[in-house]
């Protein structure tokens, strides 16, 4: 569904995991772009109704692409650049707090 722009294909490969599964991205891409390019369209379910959500605006406005990055929940995937070894997890409903 999504394809990488030709000039981005030349960039260095960055390896990260999504829910423990290894995916490849290119340096400089956002986490949201990397997720979409690897076929992950649904990145979370909403806290109230459990509806599926995926990256939409890609510019930090809609907050639909929230994921957990290296253990920190509710990060905007479109506003974070991929890094080698990054651990991304999709989110099911509301984040937890540990009392």
């Amino acid at each position, binding site marked *: 569904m999504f394809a990488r722009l030709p000039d981005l294909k030349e960039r260095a490969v960055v390896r990260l995991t999504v829910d423990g599964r290894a995916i490849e991205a290119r340096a400089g891409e956002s986490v949201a772009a990397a997720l979409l390019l690897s076929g992950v369209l649904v990145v979370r379910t909403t*806290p*109230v109704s459990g509806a599926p959500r995926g990256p939409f605006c890609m510019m930090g406005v809609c907050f639909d692409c929230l994921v957990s990055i290296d253990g*920190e929940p*509710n990060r905007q995937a479109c506003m974070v650049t991929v890094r080698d070894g990054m651990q991304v997890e999709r989110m099911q*409903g*509301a*984040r*937890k*707090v*540990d*009392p």
Partner: protein
Amino acid sequence: MGAFDVAIVGGGLVGTAVAYGLARQGARIAVLDEGDVAFRASRGNFGLVWVQSKGLGMPEYAAWTKASSDAWAGLRDALRDETGIDTAFARPGGFHVCLTDGEMERRREQNKRLHNQPDMVPYEVRFLDRKDALDLLPGLGPEVVGVSYCPLDGHANPLKLLRALHAALARRGAAYRSNTPVQRIERSGDAFALTTPAGTILSGKLILAAGLGNARLAPMVGMTAPVRPQRGQILVTERVAPFLKHPLVTVRQTDEGSVMIGDSLEEAGFDDRVGHAVVAMMADRAVKTFPALRGVRVVRTWGALRVMTPDGFPIYQQSAEHPGAFLVTCHSGVTLAAGHALNLAPHVAAGCLPDAAFAAFSARRFDVRAAA
């Protein structure tokens, strides 16, 4: 415009709760709402349905508050049945957290004075030390010394309450007029004639429920409403999985998961902006109460203006000079919503606020007494 049985000035929680109660009695209602230039306390509040600690200096207020708390489940069910909107009222019991021994001591002392008043309505308030409180509130921080607990305290979703009241009124055929500030009130025979930019509205009865606007309107029908703004600020966090069943005065988790942090109190005139010093203090206290909140994002802050009388208690009064005109004002539109809809409205419909229950709430209590 046609004539109405009752015109209610104010489309917030107070006005619509009374209007809903009157609509249930079959009255033909008009709700006149000023518009978005109004201060909109009903859109900015915290959402507690609170009993403990209220009424020191006026035991009638404690009884009135408890009665509303007792009636709230009925209001929730009626609104849900009529509109399908769940106002998320729950009464799991609420806590007031004390962070120092001094706070705890003052709390005990205040509670003793409250419940020692003659004619005070009896209800249970328990003081728990840190260890016992932890059983009911897991996750309390090490700085929490103790808590007071009242099983009657609860909370609701105030925005859903406002929407449900408006929806129920619409279903019952009440007229809702937005952007309709009342400029003048005069008599036209037996009726009240309300001058608005959209024309004159005639009604048999009149209820002033305009919040801070009551100060200007009450003298037009022979009453006084000495109300002033008192600012409260609120922080709300991102939604988190349920971790807090009970509401606290300062922290509560909403039905949809966000955590609200509130209970600031400032004399700031009509300035309803957010001040960072106060917000920082509130966040600090919330994190001391529940250290797990430290890593939770705040997504919005806002300020809103309470509608405060000199003694902090409501005013319920019928004009002696202009019978049929009623003044209704309070700073607890959520807590008292059930009381206004189910307990106050029938008296308004009957045209009489019985002295036994309502004399204490008259604004005449603020009049300077003539020297003996």
